[in-house]
C-alpha cells in the first residue's frame, strides 16, 4: 500500500513537445542535489519550494507541480547560484526558462508574467523603454487598484525630482520589423 502511494506521487505528467524543456532537463540532469543554490539564494525565504527541490521536479518532469510553485517567479537574476554551482548547472538560466514555459503553457501563470510581457511590449512599441508608460500599462494589466496605490509614494517622489516623462516617440516602431522576424522564427521551432 505504501509503495502504491509512493508510486502515485511520482506519476510523471506527459510533457508538451517543447525543445526548450528538453534542453532544460538535459542541463538539470547534471544537478546532484547538493543545495548550494538554495543556500546562496537571497530570495529563498520568500519561496515555497527551494531551488534544489525545483530542479528535482524538473528532473522528474513534474511540470504541474512546478507551475503551482512561486519559486521561479521569486528569482531576481542575481546569478549567485550560478557562480557557486559545483556542477556547472546554470540555475539562473533555468529560472528564466521556467518563467517562459509557465507563461506559454500554463493559463494560471499568464498573470504572473504580466510585468515581463508589459516590458517586452513597451520595447516593441517604443524602441527604447519608456518607464512611465511601462509602469502604467503593467499596473493597468494587474487590474488591482490596491497594488497601483502602493506605487503612489514612489511615483510622487519621482515626479518631484522630474523623473517621470510622457513617452518619447522618437524610436517608436523602430524594432517592429525585428520583433516580427523573431516571432516568425520562434513559431517555426
Amino acid at each position, binding site marked *: 500500500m505504501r509503495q502504491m502511494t509512493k508510486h502515485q506521487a511520482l506519476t510523471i505528467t506527459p510533457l508538451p513537445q517543447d525543445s526548450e524543456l528538453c534542453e532544460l532537463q538535459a542541463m538539470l540532469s547534471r544537478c546532484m542535489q547538493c543545495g548550494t543554490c538554495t543556500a546562496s539564494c537571497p530570495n529563498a525565504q520568500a519561496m515555497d519550494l527551494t531551488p534544489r527541490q525545483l530542479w528535482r521536479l524538473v528532473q522528474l518532469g513534474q511540470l504541474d507541480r512546478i507551475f503551482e510553485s512561486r519559486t521561479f517567479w521569486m528569482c531576481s537574476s542575481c546569478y549567485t547560484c*550560478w*557562480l557557486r554551482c559545483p556542477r556547472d548547472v546554470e540555475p539562473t538560466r533555468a529560472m*528564466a526558462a521556467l518563467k*517562459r514555459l509557465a507563461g506559454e503553457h500554463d493559463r494560471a501563470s499568464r498573470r504572473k508574467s504580466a*510585468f515581463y510581457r508589459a516590458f517586452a511590449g513597451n520595447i516593441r512599441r517604443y524602441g527604447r523603454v519608456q518607464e512611465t508608460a511601462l509602469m502604467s500599462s*503593467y499596473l493597468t494589466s494587474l487590474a488591482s487598484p490596491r497594488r497601483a496605490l502602493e506605487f503612489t509614494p514612489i511615483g510622487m*517622489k519621482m515626479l518631484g525630482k522630474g523623473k517621470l516623462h510622457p513617452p518619447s516617440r522618437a524610436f517608436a516602431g523602430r*524594432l517592429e520589423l525585428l520583433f516580427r522576424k523573431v516571432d516568425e522564427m520562434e513559431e517555426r521551432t
Partner: protein
Amino acid sequence: MTHHYAYYPGCSLLESAVEYDRSVRQVMDVLDAELTEIPDWTCCGASAVESVSRLLTYVLPARNLALVEQLMDVDDILVPCSACYLNLLRVVEDTRHDKKLLAQINEALSVEDLRYTGRAKPRHLLDILINDVGTGAIAARTERDMSGFSAAAYYGCQILRPYPVFDDPRQPRSMHLVLEALGVKPMAWDDEARCCGASLMVTKPEAALASVARILDSASQADAVVTVCPMCQINLEAYQSKAAGYGGPRETVSVVYLPQLMGLAFGCTEDELMLNKNMSLAPRFRAGMRQGWATQGSLEETVVEEA
C-alpha cells in the same frame, strides 16, 4: 592618452537615471576619454525580456553590437548599466562557442541588413576606469581633499556574475581601487555584491524590501553607498522609508553613483553632476558637498546647526 569609446547609455540613463548619464559623460571628459553614442541604438531587453523570449534576449542586444561593428571605427563600448552590460556581454560569451545561436541571431538581424561578427566588445565603466584610465590618472585629477569620507562600495550582481571578466566576483576590488585613488576610504562590509532585489521591487516588493533593508542597514555607517547601476541606485535610494519597516535604518542613507562622487572629488559642480536628482542624500552629505569632507568635526557641528 585619449581613449575613444562607443557609448551605450541604455534606456534608464535617458529616463529616471539621467544623473548617471550626465556624471559619466562629465567624468570621462575630465579623464580625457572620448565617448561617441552608438547611432540609432535601441533597448537591450533589460533583465525582463529573458523571461518572455529566449531569442529576443540575444537579438535585442546584438542589434546594438552590430551597429557598432558596422557604423563605428571603435570596438570597445562603454556601458554604465549593469543589466545592459550583462545583456551585451551574454551575446559575446554565448556565441563564441554556439555557432547555431550566432546564425539564428544573424538571421533575425538580416531584416535590418545588420550582422554581428563578434568584434564589438562591451566594457563596464569600472573595467574602463581600472584597466584603461588607471588609478594614477584618477588620483592626478582629484582636486578635493576627500580624506574624511567613507564609502560603502556597492557592486550589485550583474557586472561580475555570471561572467567575471574584469574582477573577482567573490571579492570585488575594482571600485575600492577607484575610491582609494580619490582619497576616499572604502568601508569594509559583507553585502557589497548582494542582490538589491532588482525588478522584484515591482513584482514581489516584500522580498526586495527585505534585501534593500539588509543592505542599507549594513552600509549605514558609511557617508554614502556608491553604486554603478541604475537599478541598484533606485532600489536603494527610493524605497528607504518602506525598507525601514523591514529592519532597514530609520535615518536616511545617502546613495550616489560612482561618477557623481568622482566628479565631486574632481571639483565638478553639483549641477554638472545633477546631484539635485538624487532621491536620498542625508543632511551630512549635503553639508560635505558644500564644505568638504576633510574635517569631519566641523561638519557635524554644521549639521546640528541646520537641524
